[in-house]
Each structure stands twice: as structure tokens, then as C-alpha cells.
């Protein structure tokens, strides 16, 4: 799809050939210690509310009732506030403020409120763990792009609304492991990112420096938070999709969405980033269909950004 070798060659003269290094001190911390510190941080990380995971589980439940949804949202005042903020956004243009979830449900209906709760809790999950810095903003924009792209792929496959939402979440959260690293070693992570953008292999460099890759850290956190298995696996395998079994579809969807996001961002490809055409076969898609599905991503990302009032 592109000339990988020349892309790497063009930048390699600026890149230290060996390790990207962790220039924290004269004596870099051994990777196993770095890893232990990140894992200790993961142990302490909890989503701001247990509601995030509950809302997530409601996505897969087509029989989720209005009562159950209301219970989950109401348990969490922050989530309630976010949902009501979206209900009262210009998007719906309601002519008087709605200050109660019960009322919002009557006016906008179950599906809309469910989607608002889902988006809010996923976004809260991501933004609560990241800062206001450039790296967090980049990560957020990238995550949103991959989420929208994954949903677009699911839609091209004519999957159900629930499966489309799951693809969106898989994409939105695929780099959760980067959040884990960013939280503990922001400076080092940023330095590594610069090199990745110049073609250094991300997973290998992360393993060298942090003792594990962001995919592994993401999987750990997702397990700890009891995400559904297909989500855990898609987080772990979004650079190397699994091609068989029940978990392959979401893994391949996230992989393809992330791949296109990186192409779109102009990130130089690396050896780890080989294109796996087999992922398309798993989804029963051809390149043309995927390329078409990607056409709608940019405007949808823009719409989502405006709607969610994110930067």
C-alpha cells in the first residue's frame, strides 16, 4: 500500500538505531521495574464510576429495559450530569431545559438516552485518565477516529445497531494501554511517540522501555475492569489481529480501523504494522468496501466532536 522501506530509510538517520532509551537519569530504570510501576498504577486505576462498565454491558443486552438503564445512570451523578448536558445541547434544540433523566427518557426515548449514556461514560473513562496536554489530545482524537471508523466498518457489514456500538467502543478504547503508560511516564512516552512517528516500531520499543507494550497494558486494565472478552482481546490484538474463533471479528475490525487511522495520520509504518489482508477475509470484506466505509469517517468524527463538545 506504500513504500515502507523508503519511508523508514528517509527518517532512519534521525533515529537512534538501538534503543529509544528512557533518559530519566543516567541510569535508566530496568524495563521490568518500569513495567511493575505501570502495573501498580493499573491496579489503582478505577473508572470514576462502576456505571461505565454497567452501561457497557447494557449495550449487548437488546432487552435492556428503560428502568434498568435509568438505574445505572442515576447511580452515578457525574454520568447523570453528562447525559443531561447532552440532552440540553443545541443538537436537540429543546425549548426548555430538561433537568431530570425521567423526563429526558420520555422526550427523547430509550435508544437516544442509552446512546448518550454510552458515549458519555466511554468518553469520561478516557478523558478522566488523561490530561489536557498535547499528547492526551492526540490520543483522544486518534481514539475517536478509530471508534468511528470501526463503527463504519461494522455498518458496512450490516451488523446490528448493538454490534455497531460495540465496534465503536472497541475502537474508542483500543489504546487504553497508552493511557496507562502516559499516566506514569508521560515524558518518556512522549519521547517514544516522536520516534514512533518517524518509523520506530512502537510495540518493540515499548516492550524494550516499559517492559510491555501498550496493547498488553490495555488488556490488563480491560480485564481488571471486567470488559466483555471480545473487547479485552481486541485491545490486546489491535496491532496483530487474531484471525480465528469467536473473538476474531472485533479484533480484525479494530485492527483495520486503527490501520486506516494511522495511514490517515501519516504515521510511518513499521515492521510490526504489516498489513494483514486476512483480517478483511475474516470480516468478509474487500478493500474497496472498506475504503468506501472510510469515506464517511472524517465528517462523522467532526460531527461527534461538535456533539460531544470535545476539543
Amino acid at each position, binding site marked *: 500500500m506504500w513504500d515502507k522501506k523508503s519511508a523508514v530509510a528517509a527518517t532512519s538517520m534521525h533515529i537512534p538505531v538501538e534503543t529509544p532509551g528512557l533518559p530519566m537519569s543516567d541510569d535508566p530504570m530496568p524495563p521490568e521495574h518500569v513495567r511493575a510501576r505501570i502495573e501498580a498504577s493499573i491496579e489503582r486505576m478505577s473508572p470514576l464510576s462502576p456505571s461505565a462498565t454497567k452501561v457497557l454491558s447494557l449495550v449487548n443486552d437488546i432487552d435492556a429495559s428503560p*428502568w434498568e438503564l435509568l438505574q445505572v445512570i442515576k447511580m452515578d451523578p457525574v454520568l447523570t450530569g453528562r447525559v443531561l448536558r447532552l440532552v440540553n445541547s443545541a443538537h436537540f434544540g*429543546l425549548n426548555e431545559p430538561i433537568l431530570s433523566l425521567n*423526563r429526558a427518557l*420520555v*422526550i*427523547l426515548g430509550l435508544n*437516544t438516552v442509552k*446512546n448518550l449514556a454510552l458515549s458519555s461514560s466511554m468518553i469520561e473513562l478516557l478523558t478522566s485518565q488523561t490530561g489536557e496536554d498535547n499528547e492526551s489530545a492526540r490520543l483522544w482524537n486518534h481514539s475517536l477516529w478509530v471508534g468511528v471508523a470501526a463503527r463504519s466498518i461494522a455498518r458496512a457489514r450490516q451488523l446490528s445497531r448493538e454490534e455497531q456500538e460495540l465496534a465503536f467502543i472497541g475502537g474508542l478504547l483500543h489504546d487504553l494501554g497508552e493511557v496507562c503508560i502516559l499516566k506514569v511516564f508521560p515524558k518518556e512516552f512522549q519521547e517514544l511517540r516522536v520516534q514512533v512517528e518517524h518509523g520506530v516500531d512502537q510495540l518493540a520499543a515499548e516492550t524494550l522501555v516499559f517492559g510491555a507494550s501498550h496493547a498488553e497494558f490495555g488488556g490488563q486494565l480491560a480485564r481488571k475492569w471486567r470488559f466483555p472478552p471480545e473487547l479485552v482481546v481486541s485491545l490486546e490484538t489491535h496491532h496483530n489481529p487474531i484471525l480465528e474463533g469467536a473473538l476474531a471479528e472485533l479484533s480484525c475490525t479494530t485492527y483495520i480501523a486503527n490501520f486506516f487511522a494511522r495511514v490517515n495520520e501519516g504515521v510511518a509504518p513499521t515492521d510490526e504494522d504489516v498489513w494483514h489482508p486476512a483480517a478483511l477475509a475474516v470480516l468478509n470484506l474487500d478493500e474497496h468496501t472498506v475504503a468506501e466505509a472510510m469515506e464517511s469517517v472524517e465528517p462523522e468524527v467532526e*460531527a461527534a466532536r461538535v456533539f460531544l463538545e470535545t476539543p
Partner: protein
Amino acid sequence: MKVRFWGVRGSIPTPGPDTVKYGGNTACYEVITHSGRRLIFDAGTGIRRLGNDLAREMPVDVDIFVSHTHWDHIQGFPFFVPAFVAGNRLRMYGPALYEHSLEGVMRIQMDYAFFPVREAELKADITYQSLTEETIDLGDVTVVTKYTNHPVLTLAFRITEGEQTIIYTGDSEPYYNVLRYESGQGRASAEDIAEMDDEVTRQNARHLDFCSGADILIHDAQYSLAEYAAMRRGWGHSPMEEVIQIGLKAGVKHLVMTSHDPSSDDATLTELEALFQAQVKAHGMKLSFAREGTIVDLDHPDGP
């Protein structure tokens, strides 16, 4: 003003010998104003023949209001001839969904997996405008919108020219308290139920207010009350008996019940129409079931 019924069936087209009288095409209504403006409401399969009709007058300049983007309200658009011809102007209006613009949905519908002609081949000058609850002032005519109770964001339209008002509800179910049904039953707190009751009452009052004084109220009435109560609550459509109450309370002159259920054949609808006409006769409200291909003219209310 007059209204022409191009498609009055709900959910899915239902051609065949049993639906000849009321028609099988899905939602499409045309309002023709005194000033000659042709306003189109919904783009179900009925819009195909309307498009062929308009094609004789090209170039045309039309406003198309989409109540919501469920299939039966947009599926005729790819067969709307004026959209493919340069020189025509189409202004599309509709509610913005949570994750899609109206334009996005129309584009998805014309994805090559569903339809052979690309959206790029729509040569007409087409603009899209997202609507919430608002007033659209077209000069000689105003269109006021209001959300209805339906599984996806849906708008009803109140069209006024001078002293005359025609209302089209799109798909619409009376608001009801979900906590009194399904899993909420017996589990929701009294406060929650009371608050939701209050909002339901408020929204139903707003709906009644929106419909008040209409010369013609074209209202979703897909099911009989028996069908509705049996298993169709929450599907986003109104039971006929309740629609009649709305028409009477709102002081409507002519109630046109529409969005006929695919399973309602001509015999069933004929029988129900006669039954309801007899019931409302004493109240002075004209009542009819929408019939594809017919025209209701406010200037000749007793005409054919």
C-alpha cells in the same frame, strides 16, 4: 391548500389485490399551497410517482421534509427522478440523529451495496438542513416542527398558509410512562413514576396543543387499540381510538388517519373507517382513512 396522498402505508410497501383501495406505497404526502409551492413530506416509496409527476415540470424547486429516517420514510428517494437532473433545486429538511446527519443517512442508503447509482450522480442542487423543534418561514408558508414519541428522533409538521393549517405527524405514539410497563413495574419508586407521569401528561398536552385547530390533521394511526394493547406498545405508532380522541379534543375539522399497518387489508380498513365515521358523526369532525392517489382540497372540502 390541498394535500395529495402519494403513499400512506406504514412500515413496508404492501402491493397486491388486498390493498388496492387504500394503497401500498409507504409514506409520502404533498402539500400544494395557493402560491403554487409544492411541499413534500417524507420520501417513502410514494415519492417515486410524485417525482415522475414533477419531472414533467422541470426544472423544479421543492422542499422535502423528512419526519425521520426509518426506511419507510426515505426508501423512495433513490427513485425520485428530479434528484438526478441538473437544474432542479431540492431542499431537504429532517431531524439530526445522534450519530448521523440527514445527509449522512441519505448517502448510506445510496451505498453501492444497497443501490446501483451513486449519490454523486444526484445532479440536482440538493441542500440539507437539520431541524429541531423550530419554525421554518418559507415566506408565504410556515412550517412548525415538534418531536413525537417514536424510537428514533421524529418530527411532526404544522403547515400554515394564511388561515389554513395542515398537520402531518410523521410516526407518532402517545407518550406513556415506561416505568408502569416492562421491568419498571413493581420496581420503580413512587417518586420516579410520579415524575414520569407528569412529563408524559405534559408531552401529550403539548402534542394536543400542536394539533389544535387543524383544518386537516394527518395522524399516524397504524393499529387498532386492541392490536396496540396486545403487543405493540413502544413500537412508536398510535392506536386509532386514541387518535380520534386527539382529533376531537384538538378541535380538528378533518382527521385523516394514516400509516396503515401492512397487515390491514382493504376489507379491514373499510370496515374500521365506516365504524369510526359513524362514531364521530355527531361531533362534527370529518374523519377518513388516507387513500393513496387521492387529494383533499381545503378550498373544496366537500369535493371528490
